[in-house]
């Protein structure tokens, strides 16, 4: 393994390892803070991507598609938090995951600038009022997001956008596993996760009936993400 010795010399002082280990001892407040501050960093990471028309039409379409899925998730968790029907670990997970999804929305909107699609209007038909219904829906959303990002990753042309997209993709998979465990099903159902094509994802989302309109005024009615 002589190549490994060469690689080892280039490692920056083990800083990453230390950061990695320290993540393992966290309080809930710390999780939430990280989710929000991490979101700010994500906005920073995406902001060096030229916004508002400088990206290829291909990548703008993909980012807007991702944004739509993130709107769906963020609004769902935000409503669950407002409704206050969740208890215990489900409530904690909803808060943390919700903060992360809102951070994803903020980052994607920031990267897209004026090209960002508006937030649709949602009606979650009461699933946020019941813990089992909430968890079942959360599992479906998170598994869908994993498959959707996975299908788009090889289609992204910009390397910085791809780097951010894959780093969101694996977080969605963590969320999916977390929600699945809370729902009482195996967090990782198979050795390989399948991609979900855009037409298939669009069909699944449409079948829920949760998107009631693509109205452009809803965004003003929603609470702004304040970090």
């Amino acid at each position: 393994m002589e190549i490994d010795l060469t690689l080892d010399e280039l490692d920056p002082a083990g800083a990453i390892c230390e950061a990695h280990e320290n993540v393992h001892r966290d309080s809930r407040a710390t999780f939430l803070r990280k989710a929000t501050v991490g979101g700010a960093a994500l906005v920073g990471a995406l902001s060096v991507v030229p916004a508002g028309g400088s990206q290829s039409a291909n990548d703008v379409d993909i980012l807007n598609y991702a944004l739509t899925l993130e709107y769906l998730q963020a609004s769902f968790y935000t409503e669950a938090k407002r409704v206050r029907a969740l208890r215990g670990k489900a409530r904690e997970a909803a808060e943390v995951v919700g903060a992360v999804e809102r951070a994803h929305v903020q980052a994607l909107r920031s990267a897209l600038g004026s090209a960002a699609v508006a937030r649709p209007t949602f009606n979650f038909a009461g699933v946020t009022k019941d813990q089992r219904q909430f968890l079942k829906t959360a599992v479906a959303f998170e598994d869908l997001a994993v498959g959707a990002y996975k299908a788009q990753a090889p289609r992204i042309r910009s390397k910085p956008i791809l780097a951010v997209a894959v780093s969101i993709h694996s977080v969605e998979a963590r969320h999916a596993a977390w929600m699945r465990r809370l729902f009482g099903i195996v967090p990782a159902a198979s050795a390989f996760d399948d991609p979900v094509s855009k037409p298939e994802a669009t069909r699944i989302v449409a079948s829920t009936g949760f998107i009631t309109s693509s109205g452009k005024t809803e965004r003003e009615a929603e609470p702004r993400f304040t970090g």
Partner: protein
Amino acid sequence: MHHLSQDSRHSRSELLQRAVVAGGALTAGAVVVAGLPKLASSAPSPAQDVRVLNLALLLEYVEAAFYAEARAKGNLRGELRTFAEVVGGHEQQHLAFLKKTLGGKARAKPRMAFGKATTDPDAFVAAALALEDTGVAAYNGQATNLTAGALAAAARIVSVEARHAAWIRSIVGKSPAADATDSPMTAAQVLKAVRKTGFLRS
């Protein structure tokens, strides 16, 4: 907005982590290209796919052998035992997939020794957590170095590693998803993290 100074115990590592999130995703590819000409060239290519997938193969060798030994020793109970069985099965499939994909270009299986990590539940958890989080960061760090075909295949694996990481974290009461993005690691950082486990004997 929360303030960074609220919890000084975490502040340094968090700053580091955020730096990784903010900068790492964008610079990881460039660092690999600039510093590791043997591992990565400037643009994705089939030859580079081989080098990247061999890095993944090293991790999968360690993971698969680790869980196989833990299952064979039979010391784990409850959900930890289920975790080792399910995840071990997945890692065996990842290993088989990568070996088949790489064919004659697959690196040799390293010699490994796991010590008490496959018998002591606390040591098992710590090792599983480190291996799974490293697996996620390793695949993420190489995404921009892969051809579209290899990326599509790697993407089917990395999210499963992320599920494993979240699962073991959840079992022991740690945040399954500690940030809005997963920090990538360069190849050098991955190798360092794997070596730090002490499991490699060759």
